[in-house]
């Protein structure tokens, strides 16, 4: 198998462009937080009451599950006429300030370079572009950005972009520096169509869980802020918080994101077990990587259960979700590279 060096180089360059453009997007999102206030003054009043119309409608229906006040009395839920929800839906882009519109454009631009980088890498090595750790991270962050963009097209909370872009830039930056592996062929153990299936599912789900983790962190800030605001410790209408969805909405968005990723992750584990059976003669053997995938899966299951348990939803559930993602990161960054095991996923190059 001869690897196409020209394409491989093009891929590297495209991915560097992606990181740079994402960084600019992040700056633009941040700039909007800092300076975008006046531009949006007109829409601000309406937005403050309901920053993300569709989300707000959803939030209202979960009266009992108010994460902001875990065990508190039920919120009085006003009747929301469906017509109103429908009419005021998508906060149209016209109301967004120029900085944030620039940030969105940069996000799309970066994503284009990112997707092209992943595809050219695959073309250069004549296989799926997730055969080593570097490729895995570039592919999963690509999923993260795609998922984020899809989420935002639907829910219009573009201001979350600063957090998502920040996290993606860090991950991609790490991939391109210490984890970077030049394009090369696969070791025999990885030559299987299960690589395409199993690792694709893992890439997808980890990319989605990445978004959930970012949302979870933002939720914790929003939740803390809303508690402080309720106690009179923080100004009730802080500029930054006003631009983010409310804690209730963030909580729901996080939950949905995890719910989206969880079956894919489960599928990925099953596919991995089938592959392990073909490659190593057993479908499950408590290899360190398998063990940590199991731990991660169990803790995400904890999160889903916590959401249905009185006294555990809200903040505690959010922490559980972050622990689960922590285990995921630990598996990818530490176990797969440093602990001995059967996984011949080419580690640090």
């Amino acid at each position, binding site marked *: 198998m001869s690897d196409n060096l020209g394409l491989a180089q093009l891929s590297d360059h495209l991915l560097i462009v992606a990181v740079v453009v994402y960084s600019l997007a992040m700056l633009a999102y941040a700039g909007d937080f800092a300076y975008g206030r006046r531009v949006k003054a007109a829409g601000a009043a309406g937005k403050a009451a309901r920053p993300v119309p*569709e989300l707000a409608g*959803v939030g*209202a*229906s*979960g*009266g*009992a*599950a108010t994460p902001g006040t875990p065990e508190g009395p*039920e919120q009085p*839920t006003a*009747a*929301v*006429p*469906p*017509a109103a*929800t*429908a009419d005021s839906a998508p906060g149209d882009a016209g109301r967004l300030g120029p900085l944030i519109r620039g940030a969105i454009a940069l996000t799309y631009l970066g994503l284009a370079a990112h997707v092209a980088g992943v595809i050219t890498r695959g073309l250069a090595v004549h296989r799926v572009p997730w055969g080593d750790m570097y490729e895995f991270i570039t592919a999963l962050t690509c999923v993260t950005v795609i998922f984020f963009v899809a989420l935002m097209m639907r829910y219009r909370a573009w201001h979350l972009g600063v957090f998502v872009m920040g996290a993606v830039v860090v991950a991609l930056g790490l991939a391109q520096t210490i984890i970077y592996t*030049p394009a*090369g*062929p696969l070791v*025999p153990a990885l*030559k*299987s169509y*299960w690589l395409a299936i199993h690792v694709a599912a893992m890439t997808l789900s980890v990319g989605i869980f990445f978004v959930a983790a970012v949302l979870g962190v933002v939720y914790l800030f929003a939740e803390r802020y809303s508690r402080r605001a309720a106690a009179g410790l923080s100004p009730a209408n802080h500029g930054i918080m006003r631009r983010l969805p409310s804690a209730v909405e963030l909580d729901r968005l996080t*939950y*949905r994101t995890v*719910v989206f990723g*969880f*079956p894919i992750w*489960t*599928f990925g584990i*099953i596919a991995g*077990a089938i*592959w392990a*059976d*073909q*490659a*190593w*003669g*057993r479908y*499950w*053997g*408590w*290899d*360190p990587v398998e*063990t940590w995938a*199991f*731990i991660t899966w*169990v*803790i995400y*299951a*904890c999160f889903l*259960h916590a959401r*249905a*348990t*009185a*006294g555990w939803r809200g903040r505690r559930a959010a922490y559980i979700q972050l622990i689960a993602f922590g285990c995921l990161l630990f598996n990818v960054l530490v*176990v797969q590279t440093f*602990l*001995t095991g059967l996984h011949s996923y080419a580690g640090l190059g």
Partner: protein
Amino acid sequence: MTDVRSPQAGNGAAAPGVAEEPADVAGETIAGVADETETPRPGGFGAVAWARWAWRQLTSMRIALVLLFLLALGSVPGSLLPQQGIDPAGVQQYFTAHPALAPFLNALGLFNVFAAPWFAAIYLLLFVSLAGCVLPRSFRLARTARARPPQAPRHLSRLPNSVRYETAMTTEEASAAAAAFLTRRHFRLSQGEGWLSAEKGYRREAGNLLFHVALMGVLVSIGLGGLFGYKADRLLVEGTSFADTVTDLDAYHPGHLVSPNDLAPFSLTLDKFSASYVASGPDRNQPESFNAHVSYTAQPGDAARTYDIQVNHPLNVDAVKVYLLGHGYAPVFRVTDGQGKVVYDQATPFLPADQSTYLSEGVVKAPDAKPQQLGFAGVFLPTAVDVSGQLESAFPAPYLPAVSMIPYVGNLGLNNGVPQSVYQLNTTGMHRLATPVQVLTPGQSMKLPGGAGTLTFTGYRQWVSLQVTYDPGQVPALISGIAALAGLVLSFLVRRRRIFVRTYRGDSGRTVVDVAGLARSDVGGGFEAEFGELAAGLKSVHDHDSSPRSEETE
């Protein structure tokens, strides 16, 4: 369609003992489990009361949560410490490196976590909890599958989604039109004087149950494999054979209920092993492919068939699978002793000491040599090169094969009852013969000083390590896994929701319609949109079907 049940019966059947209203109505909780209130601890001494309390605790969501956490936590040492089943050599090393700590960890079962009693205790408790939680819910679901939704709440406008509009119809007409509309959309109805409840989405609960039951299926399947399966290793040199019998297998690990007669009666010969490696560039020496060409007979007397066992491509003989795990070189040596007799002539598997160059180490033991026993320890180099006086292997493929062996004479210590590794020489009873370091290429010999004998390196063969496994739990585990996934997706995709309609005469004398909706579970979101669409549909039905009579009143 207008099968009207008394609201009490409908409610009771749907969820016995569960406060259906008003708390449940407002939230998205799962009847009976999610928001269970703390069961008060029994005050007296009644054993039954205590048992019931303990059972309720065990099957509560809170305990399930704690057990899940413990399960995750308990797995952690299994990945950080070497495990007996996976890496016994690592455990040995750990004992040597931490002589004080290791016995303590061993007593806690931390070198065999996944077989430790405490780990079993966690998952068995979890599965008892699961059964105690899921089975009652299954029965309840079976009952609700035929039950009707409960009576509509009195004040629909208090529900999270509601609309109110007026229609020209009479209240009866409006009710009937709404019922027809919702039935067309596959809602299940119950109706009463001026109210109507409709529910849809029972498959969500069914999906959730399927998921949890399938998890139990996975555990049972793993148990099946542990009881009836077996696993063994076998190192096989090119040109040799083995049969799938207990004596012929190297490391044999049978399940608890496996007897030697249960082993599949196949036999297998390694005809040829070949490997290819990346020859240049940054990935030089990295393997590209392995292929073990074997011939096998499934039953004694059957015709022999051939197969290429490769990584990711095991041989399957009657549900027993044979995997290629590793490979190496077996240099062939001939040893002539001091009396001129050939006392050793065979391929000798050497173990790779360097995975990238396949520099391999091994020993030769000639216990029959006279006057004294002979032993040799040394290295095999597939591509031998001299790197500034140091002998090294430059490439894993056998381009310039060579060996370098150090001779010993004396007592090999084979008869003192202590089992010895075939890969190591016990030199305590031997002394090293003073010879200069010699590099032998195929066909070359080295003469031992003092007429002790001769060692000839006649050539080399390759060996493979094979794993033989039989696991009857495999297919059930896969089916359970797929069922779990299907249940998960079903429970996430389907939302269980109710629509309530009340019709009554308003102050103006016109018929007022209150429509309210409630998602009992709306994981995927989007119930508002569905409700809006349903409410709009109902309204247009009520607008359109205006009968002439109602127009007269206008």
